[in-house]
């Protein structure tokens, strides 16, 4: 098959392949490798100390907490949105989908700013929140909100095309045989969409744990309290504590690698290919 797939000559083939590989190695592989090399530059002792130091542990915990809230919320939203949009026909559907996609085209910094405008000290609800002693901005709720915003479309945009493709015949059959809507969803829809759902969750989780810009605007960078892992990396880096910065960064890089491995496994093993396009 190698010879029959393209019309180029052998030299042209080799040249194209080499240029593509050199480009990928320079722009993608090298940065990835350098994270791990820089992280281990100071030795294993420094590495372990950097990732187990209290502020680092607090950042890891906060990142896990934020993802543990944002991802399920977006799964619930994605399932509801896909059920309404894919299984029913109503006017204004394309506009609704465009609105769901909006967060992808908004700069991360603006994604954080909008919540400052709502809940910050000078924001619409700022006075009321201050009077009632509720902290959203420069506190965990703001970080969660900003993360939900930037990961908003991931699950929905994966499920909508998938469920539209599958139609509603199976569910209608189940309902006509006496199943409730919930049973039809649980026993018919969910098994049909499980790989797509997992795919969406993977990408949503990677972004939720790795988000920087939006979270940076609402976090206030309070060490040990409102610092997520990416923000902790920034603080360490700006303090010229490079070994520690790269050590924490390497944990995030491992998360990225794990995401890619699972995503590829879904593609190879189950033939599932993303429908939503990554972001």
């Amino acid at each position, binding site marked *: 098959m190698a010879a029959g797939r393209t019309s*180029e000559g052998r030299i042209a083939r080799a040249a194209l392949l080499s240029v593509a590989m050199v480009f990928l190695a320079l722009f993608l592989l*090298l940065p990835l490798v350098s994270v791990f090399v820089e992280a281990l530059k100071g030795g294993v002792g420094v590495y372990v100390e950097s990732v187990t130091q209290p502020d680092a542990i607090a950042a890891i915990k906060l990142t896990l907490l934020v993802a543990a809230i944002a991802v399920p919320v977006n799964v619930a939203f994605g399932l509801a949105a896909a059920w309404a949009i894919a299984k029913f026909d109503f006017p204004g559907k394309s506009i609704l989908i465009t609105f769901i996609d909006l967060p992808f085209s908004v*700069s991360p910094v*603006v994604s954080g*700013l909008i919540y400052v405008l709502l809940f910050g000290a000078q924001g619409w609800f700022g006075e009321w929140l201050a009077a009632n002693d509720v902290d959203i901005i420069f506190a965990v709720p703001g970080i969660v909100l900003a993360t939900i915003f930037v990961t908003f479309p991931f699950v929905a945009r994966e499920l909508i095309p998938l469920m539209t493709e599958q139609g509603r015949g199976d569910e209608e059959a189940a309902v006509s045989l006496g199943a409730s809507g919930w049973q039809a969803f649980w026993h018919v829809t969910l098994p049909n969409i499980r790989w797509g759902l997992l795919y969406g969750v993977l990408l949503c989780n*990677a972004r939720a744990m790795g988000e*920087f810009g939006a979270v940076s605007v609402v976090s206030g960078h309070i060490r040990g309290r409102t610092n997520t892992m*990416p923000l902790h990396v920034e603080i360490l880096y700006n303090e010229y504590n490079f070994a520690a910065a790269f050590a924490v*960064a390497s944990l995030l890089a491992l998360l990225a690698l794990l995401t890619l491995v699972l995503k590829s496994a879904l593609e190879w093993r189950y033939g599932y290919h993303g429908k939503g396009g990554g972001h």
Partner: protein
Amino acid sequence: MTTGSLALAASPPHGSRRRGFVERTALPGFGLTFGFTLAWLCLIVLIPLSAVFIRTAGMGWSEFVAVALSERALSAYKVSFGTAFAAACVNGIFGLLIAWVLVRHDFAGKRIVSALVDLPFALPTAVAGIALTALYAGNGWLGQFLVPLGIDVAFTPLGIVVALIFIGLPFVVRSVEPVLADIGPEIEEAAQSLGASRLQTMRRVILPAILPAWLTGFAMALARGVGEYGSVIFIAGNMPFRSEIAPLLIVTQLEQYDYAGATAIAAVMLVISFALLLLINLLQAWARSRSID
């Protein structure tokens, strides 16, 4: 398929007739799921985004012009847009080449290479930012060769372009790949058996077929690049009028408690994003009309 959501969703799942807002079906749950979707969308996305425009509208025109179109802001838009455009051009060329190689060539480790292309979607931007800065700094793996040649990447606009090449590459590859796979080598062979040269086949057959998808990928990379923050700020150097991007200017204004300034610049950025989103949707519609032919 990366771009099918609109097309698929716009057509009804079945040929049933609509009466009233939603067409009748035995399936329950429309009211609940539609209501929840709309309410959550308004609460999380639409109302917060509208705050930017409502705040800006309250500023008055002269104040808006003074902050959103100040010298510093204008140069920040220029840096953001210029570097994003340059990076999208590089990605347009190399992304197409990589997609071509992935679709048409077989080689060892192809699956790993294909997985690697998605790295920028999975790697947190701040991690990419510090890694690229370390690579291109004067003592870095690449910087130690480039700096003596007079090529300063770190802490210059060129560094921003490098970061945005990293961020934007998969958009082009993943847009073009499925369309290239659809064309198949048979069509090229047909063109060549009819007497077309290799260059003619490329120019007259392949490029027109992939053009809408290619431009879509280009526009997506551009849109992402204009708003990108995390991967850029470490390598940019962040000098006002030279390497300060618009998102960073928003953050700077916020840190000085200049909410009006930050909001006005955010409004300009949002208008640019929405314009690019509209362009992308039009390109996708064009791509679909092509693929149905």
